[in-house]
């Protein structure tokens, strides 16, 4: 049984009076430990696919199904979906989306605060140690007290990845994680992701429009006009 199964995913957005179909029956299957790159042009529905897999949005139609370990995530209650996002999924965004008022360490720990709720206080020491360990692994050990505004783009993205990994998610969803970075910094980020994969067999779905970036994945899924049009097992470049 695949870890994740996506079938006939459909999603339409409304822009004023105009309906814009973004996904038109996309289907996808991801095995545990796999690194899948979703490649597509701008507007092809890559990010929407990622948001739906991550439980941030809901598909339009009941026949659209996303199953995680065989169970439909959109059959969950709102609370269940919140828990799914808190514990099963980790998001990395193109624009980092760090909370500007919090320092680096707090930005990473907040994922655990949300997950553990009242129990966080009892776990504080362990959580802090894990957050510090992750940040040190990403070369940010000396930047723990810095605010996001004091970091470079690459550093911010590394903090975002550390936050996404904080709760040891089964599935890491990365939405163009290098899209806002120069090639060298982007490569460093991808190297870091690669290291994580190698160490923990982390399942990763990464969205990108850059074939060079997609080449790092185990499998590349090509999305065009809201449908999966091709799949390649390594490299396209």
């Amino acid at each position: 049984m695949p870890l994740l199964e996506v079938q006939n995913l459909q999603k339409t957005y409304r822009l004023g009076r105009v309906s814009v179909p973004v996904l038109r029956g996309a289907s996808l299957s991801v095995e545990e430990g796999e690194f899948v790159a979703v490649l597509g042009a701008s507007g092809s529905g890559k990010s929407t696919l990622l948001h739906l897999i991550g439980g941030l949005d809901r598909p339009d139609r009941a026949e659209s199904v996303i199953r995680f370990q065989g169970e439909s995530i959109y059959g969950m209650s709102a609370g269940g979906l919140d828990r799914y996002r808190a514990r099963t999924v980790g998001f990395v965004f193109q624009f980092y989306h760090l909370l500007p008022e919090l320092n680096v360490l707090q930005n990473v720990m907040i994922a655990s605060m949300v997950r553990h709720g009242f129990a966080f206080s009892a776990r504080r020491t362990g959580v802090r140690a894990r957050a510090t360990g992750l940040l040190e692994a990403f070369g940010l050990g000396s930047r723990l007290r810095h605010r996001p505004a004091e970091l470079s783009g690459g550093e911010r993205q590394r903090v975002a990845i550390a936050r996404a990994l904080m709760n040891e998610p089964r599935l890491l969803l990365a939405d163009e994680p290098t899209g806002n970075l120069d090639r060298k910094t982007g490569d460093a980020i991808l190297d870091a992701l690669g290291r994580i994969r190698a160490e923990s067999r982390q399942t990763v779905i990464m969205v990108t429009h850059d074939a060079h970036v997609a080449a790092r994945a185990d499998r590349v899924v090509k999305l065009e006009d809201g449908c999966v049009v091709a799949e390649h097992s390594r490299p396209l470049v």
Partner: protein
Amino acid sequence: MLGQDLVGVSSIHSTPVYQILLTRKYLTSKIMPLLAAIAVVLCTAMVLITWSVMGGFLKNLVKSGRTMIGDVAIVWPNVGFAHYEDLIEMLEADPMIEAACPMIESYGLAHLPGDRTELVVIKGVDGPSFDRVTGYAETLYWKPLTAPHPKDKQQRDWRNRSHGLWEQKYRDGLGLKEYDANTDRQVGAAVLGIEVSGYNIRELWGGYTPGVVVVPQTDGTTRDVQVLMFDETITLNLLALDGSGRTVDTKTRKIPVANEFQSGLYDIDKQTVIVNLDVVQDMLNMDQAERIDPDGVDDPFRVVIDPLTGLESLGAGPAMLIDPARVTTVLVRGVDSEGDPRLLAERCREIYAKFAAKHARVPPAENIRISTWEDQNRTLISAVKKETGLVLFIFSFISLTAVILVLAIFWSMVSEKTKDVGVLRSIGASRSGVAMIWISYGLAIGLMGSLLGGALAYAIVLNINPIHDWMGEALGLTIWDPRVYYFVEIPNEVESDKAVIVMLGGVLSSVVGAMIPAIRAACLSPVRALRFE
């Protein structure tokens, strides 16, 4: 199943740690929450100061109004009722009653120095017993002061000097008697309300000084004459009534003024003249008197003296009766000054019923008028209560601006933090958890603003008189003119229950102001929030 299998069963809905962290960070990193808190501080302080001052004003008014009437009045107007000493004795024997005193209340014309005549309310009382019931001695104005009034910085108050004179005036006023050098005996005297004559000038420091009148002279010049009302004589004109209430005579008498009183209520101080009870009873034909018994038979053993010859002889004459002295009112003071006066009035009615059963020629218990001090001052008290309520309503309405301000500031902050909402939702925060960040934020601002506002109001009200004095001296600004408001001091007491109500209102307003943006934040789609620019 999946939700539980994958993520465990523990709830993440109520997650206060990240909410507390973010609330604290949002509070300390922006100027806007500070502005919202200042708005709450000012509104809380404004409402509490207004309520305290107006409430204190009402309290003073009630206290002053009660001063001259005791707790309960037993009244049979015009003709009055007899055997009142017996009624007073019965009342004072009751454990609920501290003291009772007789009084005659009537209207009269007072001819004042300067050839002025005023329609006045006459209260005929026995000074010492009236004092036991009403605290009358406290209201006597011309008496020695133990310390100068704090506002009388130049010590212009006459009462600070000639203590011997004021001591005598105080005794005369309390006893409602004055020594008459012509007859070498004490005669009944009057005590005027301090505003009755119109010759006393109210100073800015709150006290009175005798005024000066310009008297035209026969040679065409004028002469300034200082009118010392407490040394003057007035002429009283009263209408005497017979036992059935018919006017039988107009009585005029010159009465020395022993002192003046200040109850604190302008109407009373402007219209009331307190006169020795004996004098009023005499003028109104309400004193003890003999009358012919219409049903009586001639007494054959009656000694008759011939007015022309002076010779005594036994002869027939009309049978005589003694009409006892009468009063229109008996005032009563309860043992428990804070107790419900209605209970006291009920007790007085029961006692009066027993009294009426004992005496044949007194009004029956079902007809006698028994009223509390609240009944008598109802119009005035309810007017001030309504005024206080109106002012509070207006100020509370103005305070709605705080709610709107908090709402506007929070709305703007939620807009600014839309991306944060998206991020929090993406890491698993629930809608209610996100809403709670903003509600906690409003709660924190409300608590902070209300506590500081309460403290500010307390400090201002406690020092309102020095602050007012300073404003007068430094800026020439006198808002509370004692000549207008009739109380020398601005009330400066903050009642804790009022403070709690106002502060809770401040907290609630802030939470309500935060609620709408909080709901908006909670309802934001995470995807739209993340894409928000």
